[in-house]
């Protein structure tokens, strides 16, 4: 099972993204609704990918990238564009193959 951390503040969108990721069967998504929660979850689980959604400030995104690069330097980070997005799977494949 490939663990994917999804980060964003819009609860319905995050839940839709999680549902779409989990549907694949090979992937499992964990939601972080804030910068702080993302930092904590990153230490608890061995994620293969972090997906940045909407709602984080530009500064929070930069700080998270810096933090992840320090504690999980091999963790790929990509942006996603909402749960209805036809892009979700392509972005994941691009990041983790």
């Amino acid at each position, binding site marked *: 099972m490939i663990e994917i951390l999804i980060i964003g503040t819009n609860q*319905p969108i995050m839940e839709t993204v999680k549902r779409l990721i989990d549907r694949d069967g090979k992937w499992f998504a964990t939601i972080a609704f804030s910068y702080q929660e993302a930092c904590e979850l990153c230490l608890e689980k061995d994620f293969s990918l972090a997906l940045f959604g909407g709602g984080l400030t530009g500064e929070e995104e930069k700080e998270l990238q810096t933090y992840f690069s320090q504690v999980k330097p091999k963790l790929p980070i990509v942006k996603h564009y*909402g*749960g209805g*997005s*036809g892009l979700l*799977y392509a972005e994941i*494949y691009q990041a983790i193959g």
Partner: protein
Amino acid sequence: MAQTVLHRADTRGVADHGWLKSFQSFSFSGYYNPERINFGALRVLNDDIVTGGKGFGEHPHDNMEIISIPLEGELTHKDSMGNVATIKAGEIQLMSAGTGIYHSEYNLDPSKPAKFLQIWLFPNKRNVEPRYDQIILNNDDVRNQFVQVLSPNQDDEGVWIYQDAWFNLGKFDENITTNYNLHQKGNGVYVFLLKGKIKINGQVLDNRDGFGIWDTETFEITTLADSELLLMEVPMTF
């Protein structure tokens, strides 16, 4: 020297969901081709046909500029900002998804399909307040010149978006040569031939072919038949 990429119509991804047939120039949903992810800030170009009485149920987006150009039939739009509108050929619709938006698009006419282009661009600014716009293009009688339908500027022709992009539509007679001058250094143009036959940079395009050109300030288009085309100028890095 100009660089180019050619995407023949029959090499696009195809999704057939019964109610929706979608021809995808770039990787989308179940179509994944690592060689076809984007053209600069242009991430999605779907050539969609929605069966009468069917449509896209409510679903979310964030941080994407989403443009719809109807070609035939009508789509009825509803979104989480309270907008309810019908769009049809001769109009253009824009959604800046920003911090998040839900919307649905239905073809409420059971008697005929709705055909439209669905185009997504990466924005140059994330987490903006979501925004919806729709305008009538008034380009029916314009021939042999381009009509700007989208730009980054609020006071310019067409809808405006959060990206340094310019879209132009044009209907041309056979044997017309015209030049397109790019607005901004570092931009490229993705040409999508809606109908006809044209020649660009020595390359002949047929119906629904796509052709990207960049590292140039201008290029020439010659029509080899009556033709309709869409030019999408977008930043190549963003």
